[in-house]
């Protein structure tokens, strides 16, 4: 895949089986999700490219977040959710009976809309909590990982002198980068981001967006966003969801300049949503 620019992928039709083969982080087939009796995702099939950024756009309530939470089995934490279909992570079915959702979540990290540093912990403890609770005690390893994660999250220089300060003492944008550092400290393969910038000011947003692009080197990223500019700036390809259905998925450039579907065009030109 090194010889291909992200935008040189053939357009991504509704049937992902006609795509070029891999490498895929996720292969999703006929994913259906119900909350109680209400179905919120309908027959979603798509492939998510390895170490690329996929943006998911669509109006509120279109199922973007639900879809995201299906990728690391976080949705199971809400009561009454039922899932059908297949989601393969690096070729392995994550909904197989013998799969432990905790281990899936270790491989597929998540960053939320609201920054969530643990209020009782220092900056350092926040970053290392995942590793520590996984039983890692080696001090030098932890310190190395602490610096590495904070550097990758572009936060190291700002906090290296006050690692003992509470995580909640940071500014909003710093808190969100701390959460990203915390998520990457456990070295997942994929990062799911659920509107990570929607609660931030424009400067902090720009920093996080830059960070997201830089993280592509090491991670597959799925980014849910309401902000079309953000999707355009950061992502390699974009999926448009509407009413729980995947309407269109394509390279970001193509989807934004030449959408195939009328709904997509209406949405990106601001005619609804």
């Amino acid at each position, binding site marked *: 895949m090194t010889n291909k620019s992200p935008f040189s992928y053939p357009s991504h039709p509704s049937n992902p089986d006609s795509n070029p083969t891999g490498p895929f982080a996720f292969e999703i087939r006929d994913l259906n999700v119900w909350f109680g009796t209400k179905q919120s995702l309908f027959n979603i099939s798509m492939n998510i490219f390895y170490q690329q950024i996929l943006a998911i756009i669509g109006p509120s309530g279109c199922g973007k977040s639900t879809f995201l939470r299906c990728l*690391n089995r*976080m949705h199971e*934490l809400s*009561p009454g959710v039922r899932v059908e279909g297949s989601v393969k992570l690096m070729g392995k079915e994550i909904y197989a009976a013998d799969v432990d959702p*905790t*281990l*899936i*979540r*270790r*491989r597929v*990290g*998540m960053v*939320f809309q*609201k920054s*969530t540093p*643990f*209020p*009782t912990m220092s900056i350092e403890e926040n970053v290392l*909590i*995942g590793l520590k*609770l*996984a039983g890692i005690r080696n001090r030098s390893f932890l310190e190395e990982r602490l610096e590495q994660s904070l550097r990758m999250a572009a936060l190291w220089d700002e906090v290296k002198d006050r690692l003992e300060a509470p995580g909640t003492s940071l500014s909003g944008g710093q808190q969100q980068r701390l*959460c990203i550092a*915390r*998520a990457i400290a*456990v070295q*997942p393969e994929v990062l799911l981001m659920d509107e990570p910038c929607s609660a931030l000011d424009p400067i902090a947003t720009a920093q996080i967006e830059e960070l997201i692009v830089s993280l592509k080197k090491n991670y597959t990223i799925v980014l849910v966003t309401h902000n079309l500019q953000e999707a355009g700036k950061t992502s390699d390809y974009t999926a448009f969801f509407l009413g729980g259905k995947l309407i269109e998925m394509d390279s970001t450039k193509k989807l934004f300049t030449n959408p195939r579907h009328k709904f997509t065009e209406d949405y990106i030109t601001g005619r609804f949503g």
Partner: protein
Amino acid sequence: MRVAFYRFRKLENILVQLLCAFASFFVILPFVLILVYLIVAGASSINFDFITQLPKPIGEKGGGMANSIVGTLILMGLTFLIGTPIGILSGVFVYEYGNEKLRKIVRFSADLLNGTPSIVIGILVYGWIVSPMHGFSVMAASIALSLIFIPLVLRTTEESLLLVPKELRDAALALGIRKWKVVCYVLIETAKQGILSGILVALARIAGETAPLLFTAFGNQYWTYRLDEPISALPLQIFEYAISPYEQWHRDAWAGALVLLLLIFLLHLSVRILLKKKS
């Protein structure tokens, strides 16, 4: 017309504020009255002997309530040891585990237990433990007090956990942390303050319980350090002295009440300071 209308709204606003302040006054007033009365009636009887000596027969000078003070502390300690793990763990269960029906059953039972008159709990424990074991005991008393203590802790634990933002739990689980570790290291840690003050309020409540002790601890004129013997406690001693016909015992009852109140006050203060230091 307009001005008058706004003036009325402003007046309304002030009125509501005054009503709230007026109501709050009735919270402060009884407390102050109780405190003042206890100090006036009891403080003169509190001296070194009162907190170090055993009670003396009527007529003899001196003597104190040392065994009752220690007895209350022992009962509080044992109840804390029995009730805290059960209260917190069942609170966590209601918050985090089990299906909705099971949770409702646990919650409902706790509420009913909470509403059970303490004298009924005393009689029950008398029937279950005191009678079969042929004797009043420290153990029976602390179990009776635990039955009051546990539902209080359960509910405050659950309520404190509910105050922790859902996002924190999600964020922790999304790191691939096992659920029990999320519960222990993130949820309980974050809700710690609320859970601790819940325990504190529950402890203060059982420290003053008298009715269940009548059937279980029974009271004792001497020192006890055995779990299977009757024990004295401040509320029991206060009760005994207060219904006696002797003027000196009445004064001692007031003094005992003051000591009990101070004990609870100290407990509150120390936990407050402890919590502040940590954060």
